[in-house]
């Protein structure tokens, strides 16, 4: 190491921040040069002055950490809020993009038909909303809560001339209620609740036996 290099590194030698090899090289030159040694004394004077907290300097307040925690709390709260907001946004975006993907993959003619159906539905909804009796509800022949719980089911076709009271009496005897229908073929699906195979077969027999009311009965798919 040249004396000029050692001179440049003296501040970090004084601070004890040199690598060992560099420190040894500087020490070797210090032993040979009283002038360098004098400079080192000056650097040490600076080092000790800077390293000490002056009596005219304010002390660090450890309680500052409380303020830091408050700021972290506020930051975390904001972060959670943003994360929730972006989560909702991305779900909506994802649904929209899925729909658009399906829509674009659909042939033009089908899209046109779907659009026409949607338009018809919108018109119908508008008409119902403006003309329908308020509070009107749909009631099946056998009860007010047809799709409450899914159980064993039977598809039934009733005789065209059977009355509502006959059908109600038959369903009540079978412990069944209508959950769907009528279909295009005037069939209904009735639900027996949680019954086993034997009870299902018995009910089927009972229904088929009442030919005055039941035209056809078979276990539903």
């Amino acid at each position, binding site marked *: 190491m040249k004396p000029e290099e050692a001179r440049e590194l003296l501040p970090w030698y004084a601070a004890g921040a040199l690598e060992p090899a560099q420190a040894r090289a500087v020490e070797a030159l210090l032993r040979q040069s009283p002038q360098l040694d004098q400079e080192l004394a000056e650097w040490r004077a600076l080092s000790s002055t*800077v390293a000490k907290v002056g009596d005219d300097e304010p002390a660090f307040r450890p309680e*500052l950490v409380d303020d830091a*925690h408050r*700021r*972290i709390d506020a*930051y975390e709260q904001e972060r959670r809020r943003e994360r929730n907001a972006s989560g909702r946004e991305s779900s909506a975006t994802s649904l929209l993009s899925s729909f658009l993907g399906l829509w674009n993959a659909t042939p033009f003619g089908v899209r046109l038909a779907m659009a026409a159906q949607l338009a018809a539905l919108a018109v119908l909804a508008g008409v119902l909303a403006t003309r329908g009796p308020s509070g009107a509800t749909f009631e099946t022949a056998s009860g007010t809560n047809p799709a409450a719980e899914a159980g064993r089911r039977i598809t039934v076709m009733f005789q065209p001339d059977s009355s509502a009271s006959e059908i109600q009496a038959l369903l009540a005897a079978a412990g069944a209620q209508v959950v769907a229908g009528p279909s295009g073929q005037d069939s209904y699906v009735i639900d027996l609740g949680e019954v086993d195979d034997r009870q299902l077969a018995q009910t089927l027999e009972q229904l088929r036996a009442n030919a005055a009311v039941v035209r056809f009965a078979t276990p539903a798919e």
Partner: protein
Amino acid sequence: MELESYAATLDGIGVGMDRSLSLPSAGSEPLGRDEAWLAAIATGSRRAFDELYREYGPRIFRFAYRLIHDRTKAEEVTNDVMLEIWKHARHFERRSSVSTWILGIARHRTLNAVRNKTLHIAPIEAADEVPDEADTAETELDHTTIARALRAALDKLSPEHREVIELTFFNDLSHKEVAAITNCPENTVKTRMFYAKKRLEPLLAALAAKGAVA
């Protein structure tokens, strides 16, 4: 202390820790104390944050205060830096030491604060000569008075020169680390140190003659 053992320590006191955490270039090298703190902070450990705060809070405050000369602003800078650490601990890449990373943030924040504040700091070239009393210091002034005069002279240095001195002598950083923090070549760091000392030379000579440390 390695991350796992640090995690175990935290678990022992009821602080949860994400074991899946992996520092970007952690490799197989064991984590140092500061790195373990950062790793734990990245998982949301307030206790690790407190420990890191105890170590670095005073250093950041001192660094900022000596450049800004305003206690309130120095405290603000300190907590700005600590919040940055909280936010970005997960992104620490071990390309430098933790202290270099933290003091780099501190320097950035401090210089921003300096820019927003009218300071009584003159550029090194335009600064007044160090107080005339330095000429008489060797014969008349005691050590404490000279040290005080030296601190006053330090306060008149530009932030660029003062920061090199603070990082070296208060934070014990090598010239390479100072260069990394100040984002300038090592030779520039050495030059700044040289010119800073030149401004302070009469006082330093007086102080050295009286035996340096009071």
